[in-house]
């Protein structure tokens, strides 16, 4: 059993209004040092030993992310580590 994190973010060329709104909210509440925010999704998967990196890559790119609009990274987390 391993834990895997998949992070999905919208491609930089696509407008991210949610990121913009969060950046504005941060600036309003005194966190002007945050100059840009991109909002995306974070998945934590528990996978059994048989699941290969290739399978993870495939399921991330075909199901967890939509390659038309998003990019993703797959990271195997150290035992028990949660992100």
């Amino acid at each position, binding site marked *: 059993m391993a834990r895997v994190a998949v992070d999905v973010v*919208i491609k930089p060329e*696509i407008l991210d*209004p*949610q990121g913009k709104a969060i950046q504005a909210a941060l600036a309003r509440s005194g966190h002007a040092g945050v100059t840009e925010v991109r909002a995306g999704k974070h998945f934590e998967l528990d996978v059994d030993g048989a699941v290969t990196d290739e399978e993870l890559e495939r399921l991330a790119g075909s*199901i*967890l992310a*939509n390659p*038309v*609009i998003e990019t993703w990274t797959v990271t195997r987390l150290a035992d028990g580590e949660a992100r």
Partner: protein
Amino acid sequence: MTVRIGVITFPGSLDDVDALRAAKIVGAEPVSLWHADADLHGVDAVIIPGGFSYGDYLRAGAIAAQAPVMRSVVDAARGGLPVLGICNGFQVLCEAGLLPGALVRNAGLRFRCIDQQLTVERTSSVWTSRYRSEYDDVRPILIPLKHAEGRYVATEHDLDALEAEDRVLFRYHGDNPNGSLRDIAGICSADGRIAGLMPHPEHAIDALTGPGTDGLGMFSSLMDSLVGAAS
């Protein structure tokens, strides 16, 4: 001949009954299709209705695109079966790869339910022939729209190709309600048989319950083409 129009129900579908009603109003036999059943039951066209299929919990339409019934729809659509995706149905068609691009969170970030004017950009499709007028200038039609994720995006390349191939079916007229690129509200396949749009023509088929009857044209157009083809 009786025309049979299938309407898919996924868990979480909302406007399936409205689509079935629209099919009935234009004289077709409405047929309910179930997400888990790959059999299309010999229907002459398929409508994928609005709603939140499987909760839209991953991305709108993403999980539904993997449903058994969709595998059959994809095959049949490639074989020429007319398919219309409305709202969530449009999202499903994009996720299933039958239409290009994707639908993302509205620029204003909120769910919007408004009556929206649209221009019909192409009247030579099986879904829009009724909007053809004697003159070339089709008047804008008024159709309800209701979604939180209806901003159409695609690469510049894809957008240019859509325009070049005359595949933009509808554009928002007046204010763009969600930030869609090039004001796109609906698109179709090159042959005009596979179509998707965010607004809800099935909510504009009766002036009592909608802003008017401008949506009826989409269903009547389909009937024209199917009945015409048979006779």
